[in-house]
Structures are given as C-alpha cells and as structure tokens.
C-alpha cells in the first residue's frame, strides 16, 4: 500500500510535468499566440512590442521561459498577461464555487442514476424501462449550455415573472457564509443542468450491469438461501454492479471538480474555476490557462489514485501492486 502510494505520487509528478510542458509549448505554435503583440494593444510599433518582450522575458530561450513560468506558478506569483491579477488567487476564489457545484451534482447524479438504473433493470423490456431509455437518450443528447440557458430563461427568469417571486434564481452565486439557503437556492439549477447528462449515462450503464449481475451464479445462490428479494438486490446484485461504475464516477468527478464544468459555470455565471478558464481561453491568456490545466490534471491523477484504493476496498480480489499503471 505504501509502495503503491509512493509510486502513484511519483507518476503524478511526471504527469503534471508533461501536462505543463505540452500546454506551455502549445502557446508557441498557435497562430496569433505571441503575447507581446497582443499585450501591446492595437497597431503597436515594433519598439513597443520589443519593449514588452524584454520586460516579460519573451525574448529568452524557451526553456528559460518555461522555468520562469513554473517558478512563478509554484511561488504563487504568476499573473495574468491581460488583467495583471494574480492567477493562483483567482483560482482560489473560484474553488469553493466549483467544489460546491461538482460535489452537489455528483451526489445528485449518483442517487438518481442508482434509483433509475435499478428501476429500469427490474422492469427490463417493459414500458417504464423503454420510457426511461428514451429520457436517458434525451438527457445524454442535450448540450448542457443549451439546457442551462433554457432553464435560466424559463425557470429562472420567466417563471419568476409569472409567479411574482423567484422559485429559482436567474444565475449567480451566493457565498455559503452569507446565506446557506441562498447558496443552496442558487445552486439547484446548475446542479440539475450538470447532472442530467450524467444521470442519463450512468443509469444506462448501471442498468446493463445490474441485468448482467442478476444472471450470476452467486445471485442464484443468494435466492436459494431464502433471502428476501430486497436483500438479494441490494446486497448481492447492486453491490457488485456498482464496482465498475465507481471507476467511471471517479474520472468524471475529477474532471468536473478540476474545473471541467466550464459550460455549466459560464451559463449560470457561477464564477468558478471553469468559468475563469473559459475567460482565459477567450483571451488566449497563457498563465491562467496553464494554471487551470494543471489544477485539473492534478485532480484527474489524484482521483485516479483514490479510485484505485476505493476499488481495492470494494473488490477484495483486487490487490494494489506497486507496478500498477498510473
């Protein structure tokens, strides 16, 4: 176990290094990516551009630039090329918002996916199963920015006009410390919007797993033992069906909590890490993009490791070996 974790930590450093190098290099090959030109404003003179290059060190060899950038990032002094704001501080501001969105949505989507997956599997082939299948496909197919925009417009804005009070707020975020109820109230729609796709997808995966598990010999044994249907379903079928889903869940959760819910955050104006990244991408602002990419990569690698440990706890046949790949 200790060797496993050490090995994983080492590979985490490697992955983060690779991600940082690649993200950094991309800015040297994308067209119109020269920050000095962009920072100099409209129709700059060559001397102005040159002055900015020297001031920011863009004239140095690329490996020196990389080293400087990394140093700034890890000492927390990195600033945006355009807003001049401290990148790490800006990310920290977004973290509570992103975490609130990701954790709430992940809980919501697992609860509904399990409930709907069980329901469908037990009625496989029936009318309600087919209906749920259609709903799941619709849920998977709806782009989150579209769904979010509709929810904002109709549930957040027009419904409030009709009712005369805000059943759902029209976007925005309220600090938990300010008002727990307002915090919750403002997150309901984003949670739902972000969960819909995952609920559709996970309930289908789980349905298939459950149906497959129901045919297992040990489920027949469980029934032959005289256990109640409920116990067979929850302790023998569901328990085993959930194991593969955990891996999936870990990866998706890592992406969302690492700032991957860019569209949801932007549509509902949550000002989280994802929205920060979206703004930075729009301006081709290298420092924040680099920092958010590494932030996200960290969570992906971290949750991969956590999931492997959880997996071993869920399935005693799995042993954690130092040789496991990252």
């Amino acid at each position, binding site marked *: 176990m200790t060797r496993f974790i050490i090995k994983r930590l080492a590979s985490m450093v490697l992955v983060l290094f690779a991600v940082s190098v690649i993200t950094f290099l991309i800015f040297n090959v994308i067209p119109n990516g020269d920050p000095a030109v962009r920072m100099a404003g409209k129709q700059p003179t060559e001397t102005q551009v040159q002055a900015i290059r020297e001031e920011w060190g863009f004239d140095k060899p690329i490996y020196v630039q990389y080293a400087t950038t990394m140093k700034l990032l890890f000492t927390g002094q990195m600033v945006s090329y355009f807003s001049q704001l401290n990148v790490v501080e800006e990310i920290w501001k977004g973290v509570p918002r992103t975490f609130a969105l990701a954790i709430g949505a992940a809980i919501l989507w697992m609860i509904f996916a399990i409930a709907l997956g069980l329901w469908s599997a037990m009625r496989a082939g029936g009318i309600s199963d087919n209906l749920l299948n259609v709903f799941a496909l619709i849920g998977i197919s709806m782009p989150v920015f579209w769904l979010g925009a509709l929810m904002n417009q109709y549930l957040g804005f027009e419904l409030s006009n009709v009712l005369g009070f805000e059943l759902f707020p029209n976007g925005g975020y309220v600090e938990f410390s300010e008002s727990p109820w307002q915090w919750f109230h403002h997150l309901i729609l984003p949670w739902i919007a972000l969960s819909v796709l995952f609920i559709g997808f996970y309930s289908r995966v789980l349905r298939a797993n459950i149906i497959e598990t129901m045919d297992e*010999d040990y489920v027949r*044994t469980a029934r*032959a033992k005289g256990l109640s249907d409920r116990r067979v379903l929850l*302790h023998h079928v569901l328990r085993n069906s959930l*194991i593969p889903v955990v891996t999936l869940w870990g990866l998706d959760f890592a992406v969302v909590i690492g700032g991957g819910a860019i569209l949801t955050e932007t549509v509902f104006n949550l000002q989280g890490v994802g929205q920060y990244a979206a703004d930075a991408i729009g301006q081709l602002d290298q420092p924040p993009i680099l920092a958010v990419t590494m932030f996200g990569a960290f969570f992906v690698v971290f949750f991969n490791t956590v999931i492997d440990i959880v997996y071993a706890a869920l399935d*005693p046949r799995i042993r954690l070996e130092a040789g496991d790949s990252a």
Partner: protein
Amino acid sequence: MGEPLLTVSDLRVSFRTEGGLVQAVDGVSFDLDRGEVLSIVGESGCGKSVMAMTLMGLTASRNASISGSIRLGETEIVGADDDSLRSIRGERMAMIFQNPMSSLNPVQRIGDQIVEQIRAHRDVSKSEAMERAVYLLNAVGVPDAKARARAYPHEFSGGMRQRAMIAMALSLDPEVLIADEPTTALDVTIQAQIIDLLMELNREMGLAVILITHDLGVVAEIANRVAVMYAGQLVEEASLDGLFYDPLHPYSWGLLGSVPRVDGERPKRLAQIKGQPPSLIDPPKGCRFRERCPHAFEACEGPVALEPRAGDPGHPDRCLLPVEAKRDLRKLDSGRIGLEEAGAGS
C-alpha cells in the same frame, strides 16, 4: 417407510421463447424418502437443472409456466407465494450448484455469507450465527475454520468453495439437499472427497439428497435410487442395482455403455449414442428416444407411459420392447452394454 418426504407428481415446466414453447420438464413424477439419495441422471439439456431449480421454487422467469405438484411434507411448492417459498428455501430445502467458483459472492467473506443465510431465517445475533458458521465449516472439513471464515471466496480452492457451499446449505438443518452437478467442475480427487462428504452427511444426519449428475461413477458410489431423464421425461427409474445390473431402457444402456470400465474386457472404443437429443420445442410424439434408438419399431410412434413393465413396481421404464427382448439385446458383445454393438447385431 411411511409418507415420502418429497412428492413430485406430473411436474411440467415450459418456457415461452422466440423459437416456440420449450417443454423443459414434461410430466415428471417421483418420490423422495427420508434419508434417501435419489440420483437424476441424463445428458446436458435434458431438463435436470430446470427441474432442480423448480423444486426450489426458483424458476421465476416471466416466460416460465409450471404445472403439476411438488409437495414437501404438507407444503405445496408449485404456485406458492414468495413468502412461503422463502421460508422453505435454505430452511427446509437447500441447494448446492455445479460451479463453486462462481456460486459464492466474490465480495463477501465466506463466514458472512453463511451468517446471512442463518439470520435470514433465525432471529439470532451475528456472533451466534458466526459461531455456527465456523462450526459448520469445520464440520465439512475446512481446516482452520475460524480464520478461514474471514476469507473471501477467491482465497479458497474449488474444492474448499464447494465445502463452504455445503456448509452454507446445511446451516439450518434442511430436510432435503439438492445437489446440481456438485462435482462436475472439480478435480477427480476433490470430487471423491466431496462425494464422501455428502455420503457422510446422508448417513449421519439422515439428510435426503437429490443428486443431479451425468456422472454414473458418482451415482454408483452414493445413490440409493436412480431416475434416468431424457428430453424432459423420466425414461427409467430403478434402485441402484436395478439400473446397473438390469437396465431396461435403451437410453440407459447407452449411458452405461459410454462409461469406461476397469473390469472385464476392454472394448476397442466406448459405445456412443448416435445423433442428438430431440429439440424440446415440439418434441417427437411417442417415444422421444425413437430416432436415436436402433431397436425402434412402429408402436414406438404411439404414446409410451412410464410403467413397471418388468414386474417390479420399483423399476418402471418407458420402452415398449418386450422385457425378454431388452435383456437379450443388451447382452451382446461379451456382456457389455452398448447400443452400437447391439444395433449392428439386430
């Protein structure tokens, strides 16, 4: 003997499938007495396992229809509701399966799986149930039972897993143990150990056993009585000696002839039954073995009942040949029982 423990009469199980109605079990009747070992033999797909599952009330598929009667003492199993079935399963009738590798829940400790069964039926504490589980594991020959109860199935060998299955099946002192091919997936030496264990339980606890198998070697060792099943029907029922020394149905000759023997002269090759068993969708009228039987004649196309044709009420069969002809036909080829040789001679 008095009342039989388990009475099956005219049991029929069919499944609606896309290909048509599959008549997996077609009018099977037999009794099981207390302390008896009844073996049901037949080839793959003859309906043995479906019947075993039905005895436990486990044939719950939506496309299945079951008729006839299965009486365990005073309780009727066919058509019983879920609650009463649940109180029979594990408590009065227990079952062990063909594949011990996959019959235990991989993510639950062995001991916990036994505890779960005990606590599903009895109002006892976890630790009391665990004590019982350890006692049972020890009784079925799992060494160091107390520690091993904490192991997971994948940490057990195949033979040990089958022992654990047996311990679990015995946990509530059932009246009947249904063993569906309990040794098929095991090594030969382990097979012998498991059979010895079943015999011991039968002798010492008076446990009645229904042993479903296609292995006649196992049958010879443990069974008191044998029922031969073919294409969903019983074609012959006899005492162990009755079947091995005086088999009356040509299908039984084929089964017996296909087993290698160490006594007597060795044949150049083992007998085999030509052809395939009939499809259970729309099976042939009359004798179902007719198309593969070298001795079939016109009357075989009509209905054939399971009757005591040789005079012994404990030894009915489903073949219309005169008893003397049966005994002559099967005797060919230096006393070996074989269809191939018999067919060539007639």
